[in-house]
C-alpha cells in the first residue's frame, strides 16, 4: 500500500524526441493518495496506458520520477514495486487450470500452501469463478478469461497498488455493471490504492472517487465527477464529460463587450477582468446543455439571446433541442413540462453556469476554497 507521486514525469517512445507532439506523455506532476480509488479517463491515444505502464514499471519514463511513499522507484521492476495490474485483453496461462492461474502470483512469491488455497477460494468466490476452478483456462469464454485476469490482480493482498487498464472492454454489458460494483466493494474492503484506466465516463464515475481526465498526454483536470461536470477545467473536459457534451461558442472581446455574430453575452466581473488581462484571441464561452434556459421571466428576457430551433429529439423524460445561434449549433436540454417548438426561440445563459475559456483553459472563475 502506497502513496504514488509522479514528479515532472514525461515519456516519449522515440529515443530523441524533438517536438512536443513526439511525447506520449507531456511533463506532469501528480499525487495519488494511499487507499484512493482513482480513474484515468480519456480517449484512446491520450497516454493513459503509457502512464499506467510507467507506474507499474513495465515502461521506464524518459524523464522525471515515480515515487512510492516518497522513495524513487524508477529503476525498480514491477516485481520490486509490488504492483498488480489487469490488462485490457485477457491474459491467461492457457495450460493451467483456473485455480493454478489464480494461484500463480502467490506461488511466485512462495506463499504457504494453506494461504494460497484460502486466498484463491476467496477471490474465486468474489469473481464467481468457483465452479470453473478445476477447468483449463484455455477453454473458457473471453468473459471468464478476463475475470481470471482480474482475479489474478486481486489475489495478492500486500500490493502497493492495483492498476486496471480498461479491464471491462471484452465483458458483456450487464456483467460490466456487476463487476464494477464488485471492484468498488473490494476497494472498500481492502483499502488498496486502485487506478482504473477507461475511456467510459460512466465507468469512471461509478468506480472512482476522483477522476483524472487525460488529453494529448496531459492530465487536464483532476477532481470529483461532480466538479468535472460543473467546472470543466479545459474545453476537452467539457466536451468529453457529459452527454451530450458542453456547448462552446468562439467569441470576441471588443470594447468591454463579449460578442459573437450580432449577439452579446453578459459575463461576470471576474471573467471580464480575465479577458482584459489576456492578449489571446482564442476565446470561447461554454455552457452545458443542461443549463441553457428558455427566456421566460422578465430578468431572463433582458439578457436573452435569439436562436432558431431546428430539431427536437424526444428522450421521454426530457428532450434535446438543437438550436442555431447565429451560425453556431448548440444543444439544449428541455425538461418534461417545458415547451419548445421548431422556430424562433429566446434563450438565456445563467451567469453561474456560463464558463469562459481562454486558450482552451477555464478562466475568470471565482476563487473559492
Amino acid at each position: 500500500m502506497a502513496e504514488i507521486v509522479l514528479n515532472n514525469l514525461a515519456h516519449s517512445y522515440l529515443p530523441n524526441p524533438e517536438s512536443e507532439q513526439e511525447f506520449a506523455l507531456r511533463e506532469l506532476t501528480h499525487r495519488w493518495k494511499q487507499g484512493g480509488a482513482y480513474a484515468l479517463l480519456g480517449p484512446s491515444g491520450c497516454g493513459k496506458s503509457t502512464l499506467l505502464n510507467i507506474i507499474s514499471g513495465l515502461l521506464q519514463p524518459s524523464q522525471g520520477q515515480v515515487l512510492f511513499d516518497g522513495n524513487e522507484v524508477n529503476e525498480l521492476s514491477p516485481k520490486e514495486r509490488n504492483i498488480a495490474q489487469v490488462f485490457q485483453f485477457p491474459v491467461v496461462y492457457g495450460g493451467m487450470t483456473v485455480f493454478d492461474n489464480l494461484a500463480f502470483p502467490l506461488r511466485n512469491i512462495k506463499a504457504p500452501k494453506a494461504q494460497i488455497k484460502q486466498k484463491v477460494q476467496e477471490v474465486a468466490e468474489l469473481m464467481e469463478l468457483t465452479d470453473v476452478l478445476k477447468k483449463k483456462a484455455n477453454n473458457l469464454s473471453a468473459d471468464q478469461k478476463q475475470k481470471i485476469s482480474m482475479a489474478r490482480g486481486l489475489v495478492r493482498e500486500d500490493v502497493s497498488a492495483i492498476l486496471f487498464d480498461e479491464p471491462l472492454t471484452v465483458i458483456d454489458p450487464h456483467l460490466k455493471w456487476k463487476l464494477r460494483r464488485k471492484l468498488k466493494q473490494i476497494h472498500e474492503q481492502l483499502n488498496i490504492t486502485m487506478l482504473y484506466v477507461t475511456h467510459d465516463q460512466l465507468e469512471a464515475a461509478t468506480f472512482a472517487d476522483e477522476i483524472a481526465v487525460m488529453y494529448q498526454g496531459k492530465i487536464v483536470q483532476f477532481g470529483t465527477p461532480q466538479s468535472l461536470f460543473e467546472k470543466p477545467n479545459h474545453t476537452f473536459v467539457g466536451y468529453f464529460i457529459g452527454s451530450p457534451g458542453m456547448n462552446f461558442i468562439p467569441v470576441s472581446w471588443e470594447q468591454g463587450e463579449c460578442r459573437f455574430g450580432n449577439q452579446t453575452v453578459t459575463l461576470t466581473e471576474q471573467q471580464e477582468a480575465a479577458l482584459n488581462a489576456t492578449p489571446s484571441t482564442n476565446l470561447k464561452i461554454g455552457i452545458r446543455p443542461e443549463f441553457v434556459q428558455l427566456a421566460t421571466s422578465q430578468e431572463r428576457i433582458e439578457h436573452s439571446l435569439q436562436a432558431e430551433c431546428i430539431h427536437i429529439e424526444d428522450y421521454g423524460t426530457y428532450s434535446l433541442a438543437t438550436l442555431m445561434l447565429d451560425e453556431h449549433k448548440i444543444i439544449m436540454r428541455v425538461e418534461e413540462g417545458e415547451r419548445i417548438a421548431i422556430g424562433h426561440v429566446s434563450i438565456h445563459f445563467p451567469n453561474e453556469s456560463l464558463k469562459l475559456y481562454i486558450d482552451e483553459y477555464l478562466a475568470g472563475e471565482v476563487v473559492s476554497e
Partner: protein
Amino acid sequence: MNKTPNNKAWWLVLPVFLLVAFSALIPLMTVVNYSVQDIFDQNTAYFVGIEWYQEILQDERLRESLFRQFGFSFAVLAIEIPLGIFVALTMPKQGWQASVSLILLALPLLIPWNVVGTIWQVFARGDIGLFGWGLNSLGVDYNYTANSVDAWLTVLLMDVWHWTSLVALLCYSGLRAIPEAYYQAAQIDRASSWSIFRYIQMPKLKGVLVIAVLLRFMDSFMIYTEPFVLTGGGPGSSTTFLSQTLAQMAIGQFDLGPAAAFSLIYFLIVLLLSWLFFTTITHMDKDKS
C-alpha cells in the same frame, strides 16, 4: 470457420491430384511390383511373393543400418530441438539485428545438400580445413576419414549445422505470435524467467515444435546426400545410413527385389512413426482441454 460441403471443389484440387499422383503413385506401384519379383534383367522376372520380405527381415546388414539410423535420428532430435529453441529465444525481436539473424540462420537451409557435404568435407579436413586443423592443433586426435567415431560425429555436427536453423526459425515464428501483454502480465505476476518459458512460451511453441520434430525426424531418417558426399558412408560402414544401404543394394548390386521390399517397409516405418507422433501430440492436447 465453417466450411461448406461442395464436391465440385474436387475440380480445384484435380490438377494437384493428377500431378502428384503421376510422380507418386506410378513409382510406388513400380516399387511394389519389384518387391514381389526376382528380377534378372529388363525382360526376365519371376514372381516370388513375400520371399524378399522374409529375407530382408533377417538381413544383418539392413538391421544394423536401421539401428544406426535410429541412433542418428535420435541424436539429431536430441541436439537440434533444444538448440533450436535456445537460438529462437535469444534472437532479437525487431530491427536490423532481427533481419540479419534471420538471413544468417536461413543460409544453411538454402545451400544444395551436396554442397553442404562438400563444405564440411573441406572444412573438417585435417590438412586444408579450418575445423580439422584447429582440432588437431589443439591436440585432439581427429580424422574423420579414418576414425569411425570422428566420422559419425562429423556427420552429426554437419546435420546440426544444416538443420538447426529450421527448428530455430519455426520456433522464432511461434514466439513472435505471443502478444506482448503476456510478458507484461508475467512480470506483474512476478514470474521467473523459467516460469515464463514453461507457462507462456512453451505452450505457444507446441504447435510449431510438432512440425519441427516431424520434419527433422522424417528428413534425418532419410538422410542420404550429405553423408554420401562427406564420408561416402565410411570409414567401414560407420556412416552408412539406411538410404545409402538401400541405394547400394538397388543400384550397385541390382538387388532390386529386396531393396524395394525394404524401402516399402522403411516408408511404412516413417509413416507409422510420424502418424503415431502426430496423433499422440494432438490427443494430449485434447485430453487436457
